[in-house]
């Protein structure tokens, strides 16, 4: 199960609010952080957060569990680290 740690500071609050509104995500208080879990994947759209690009591209600074499947100016998508995408040879 992929997770994203978000430091509890005002500028990253939109990520936490977005996760709280999203039934596919779960939030857990962890001291200075809120941990966002997703099953089987964790996806957050930038448009749902209202975050500017400079801030958005620092969204994973709190730490992650899992792998980055997609992270561009539109979406963050994390998946479990042991889930491998089959290659063309397989």
């Amino acid at each position, binding site marked *: 199960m992929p*997770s994203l*740690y978000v*430091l*509890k*500071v*005002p*500028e990253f609050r939109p990520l936490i609010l977005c996760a709280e509104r999203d039934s596919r995500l779960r939030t857990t208080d*962890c*001291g*200075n*952080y809120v*941990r966002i879990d997703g099953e089987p994947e964790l996806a957050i759209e930038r448009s749902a957060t209202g975050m*500017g690009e*400079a*801030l958005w591209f*620092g969204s*994973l*600074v*709190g*730490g*992650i*569990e*899992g*792998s*980055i499947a997609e992270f561009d100016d539109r979406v963050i998508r994390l998946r479990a*680290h042991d889930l491998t995408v089959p290659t063309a040879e397989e």
Partner: protein
Amino acid sequence: MATDTSSGPESPSLAGVDHIAFPTWKPVETVGFYRDVMGLKLIHAISAKGWGRTDHPDFLHFFFDTGQGSTIAFFYYVGTSPREDMAGPRGYLGMARHLAWSARSEEDLLAWRRRLEARGIAVSEVVEHEALKSIYFRDPNGYPLEITWKARALTAADAEDAALTIAAMIETFGGGSDGRSIEDMWRRKGEKLRAQAAAAK
């Protein structure tokens, strides 16, 4: 290996920036920019016949007030050839080494942007960073400058978070990057937080 000695009996503290100094081969344009465009007060100028050494050029050294007791200063070495590379490369590497001043308020930051733009200076939009909002521009020498407004004060949580990031950075990149990525560092930090949470239970 890196060892934090930021506190302890032999750890004197610094009291802010006194001055930052750059060479210039455009002394007239430099005065025009800092005194007339930015409106900073010229508060000190010295000039010297070398420094008694034959290989040291005659020079002027002049200072503009940048607030809170700090100044920006320039050396003009008379008769020397311009060094275009002093401003550094274009692009992100050239901007990486830069000077950032504080604006007193968000309104002042916007006022600075309007002032620079009205006087024909190419200035960025306001960029929102983690705890800052900033504008970026260059002086006539090509030196990259920033004016920034702190949207909030940094807290103990920020410092604790920074310590974890830097610990993860040292563990990930300490021996060179060697194919490791920022994703590996974020994952290392995630492991540390998971361990911290388990220990707290």
